């Protein structure tokens, strides 16, 4: 074989290898979906959403407390993180780059890469220890710290797209700066901000590690902020590592619900960002 032919052949081999590996890396995705669907879909019934988990040996248990707990945790986390996150995002987008804004941005990025278990420890030290008990509140604090960087970054990125001229018009009409931000800049970027919120909610809805020793889990129904609550990821973790088949079935069902929820949030954020694109 001539040298040229060999080079051409090698080129072909390389492309095939690249394609093969690319396709191979999404196989786990299909396997995970397939298994969750196969194992989890059977557990899904109307009762699954309204019943409490039952002891081993009794069928018909549900995940109602986990759904309520997850909802509570995420809601309170949003209440804490969104105002702060959006404010910091506005600040970063509006401020000129100086030492302060650079270090704020850097600390944001470090926070984003922080292992979630470390954030769990922090919520434990800050909230659980002084209060003396595991609580939904401490879980929400941990989740709020986790979602903060995502909200800040998407807010900043979106608001940077809002043109200066828009702001200048508002200022020229005599609007004070704070009104310009509230009535012109934020509405112009609202779809991007909403997308960021959805993405961050999708991220924290599946978080388990920071909840292990903050929200802790609770086999009963509870919506009390100051008491331990259950959550979807926690129920999956606790029942997955249990030795009972009944509980595994429950965990598969809960996985099915969680994955469906996370995918729906991701899809929704994608639709919003495409339908209402921030463009000028």
């Amino acid at each position, binding site marked *: 074989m001539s040298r040229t032919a060999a080079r051409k052949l090698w080129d072909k081999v390389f492309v095939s290898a690249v394609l093969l590996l690319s396709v191979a890396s999404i196989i786990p995705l299909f396997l995970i979906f397939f298994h969750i669907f196969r194992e989890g879909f059977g557990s899904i019934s109307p009762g699954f959403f309204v019943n409490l988990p039952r002891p081993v040996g009794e069928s018909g248990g549900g995940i109602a407390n986990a759904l309520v707990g997850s909802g509570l945790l995420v809601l309170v986390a949003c209440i804490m993180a969104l105002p702060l996150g959006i404010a910091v995002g506005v600040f970063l987008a509006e401020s000129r780059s100086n030492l302060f804004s650079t270090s704020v941005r850097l*600390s944001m990025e470090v926070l984003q890469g922080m292992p979630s278990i470390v954030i769990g420890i922090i919520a434990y030290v800050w909230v659980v220890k002084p209060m003396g008990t595991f609580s939904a509140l401490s879980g929400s604090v941990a989740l709020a710290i986790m979602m903060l960087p995502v909200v800040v970054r998407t807010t900043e990125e979106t608001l940077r797209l809002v043109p200066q001229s828009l702001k200048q018009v508002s200022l020229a009409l005599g609007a004070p700066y704070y009104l310009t931000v509230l009535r012109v800049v934020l509405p112009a970027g609202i779809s991007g901000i909403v997308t960021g919120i959805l993405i961050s909610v999708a991220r924290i809805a599946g978080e388990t590690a920071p909840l292990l020793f903050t929200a802790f889990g609770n086999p009963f129904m509870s919506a009390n902020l100051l008491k331990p609550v259950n959550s979807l990821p926690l129920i999956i973790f606790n029942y997955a590592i249990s030795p009972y088949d009944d509980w595994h079935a429950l965990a598969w069902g809960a996985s099915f619900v969680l994955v469906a929820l996370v995918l729906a949030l991701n899809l929704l954020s994608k639709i919003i960002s495409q339908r209402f694109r921030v463009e000028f």
Partner: protein
Amino acid sequence: MLVLLTGIFVSLLLGSQLSLKKFGFAFLIGTEWDPIAQDFGALPFLVGTLLTSFLAIAISVPFSMAIALSLGEYFRKGVLSSVLRSMIELLAGIPSVIYGFWALFFLVPIVRSMQMQLDVPPYGVGILTASIILAIMVVPYSASVAREVIAMVPSSLKEAAYSVGATRFEVIAHVVFPYARSGIIAGILLSLGRALGETMAVTMVIGNTNALPTGIFSPGNTMASIIANEFTEATEEVYLSALLEIGLVLFVVSMIINIAGKVIIQRLDRSHRTSKK
């Protein structure tokens, strides 16, 4: 934000003071983790974390590079690329507890049967299983950064190589990769940061033994998994403090890796902008 980050650091430092004072540097090289005797050394977990993370990176790099090349060079547009891209995004969006659950029931039996054929103790769980699931989880991170830098390679450079008769593979090997090298490394660093701190999936399949791992098949524990497993059991001050110190180590390591990755990406951005002008 600054306050938050400093607060986290200070709290971890204060919380781990007791163990810092008692064990000093020996904490990092001690192999004994004995809550009853209150003797704590974190070396098994350090080794466990490093082994799983680097093994995971080694497994994931060929895959993430292939994806980056597919999306950034071979198929930049079209149905195939958008399908592949959204699949990868989905992969990044699956919660880690789901990965762990799935690995526990479908990866562990596979590894176990493999171990039986190799005639090693068939635990199923262990360093290797954790590394495989970690590799699957971090592929999207390094792939997305690498894709961006590979797509940034100026076409004039590539065309120059084509014009002297290079095949596409030669262009990739001699033009695209050298140009995108630092970005690819940054992406790998970021996914390394992910792998080091990943908790749930690893905790569920690593086997949770506090001895120094003897090989890739042996069960072990990582820094993150030991915290997840024992934090709620830690009733003594020193025990809790030792776990907090592990958290501190995790914090510092992931901060260094993240900042290094960001610095490389930023420098790359700047040089890209100036080369365009």
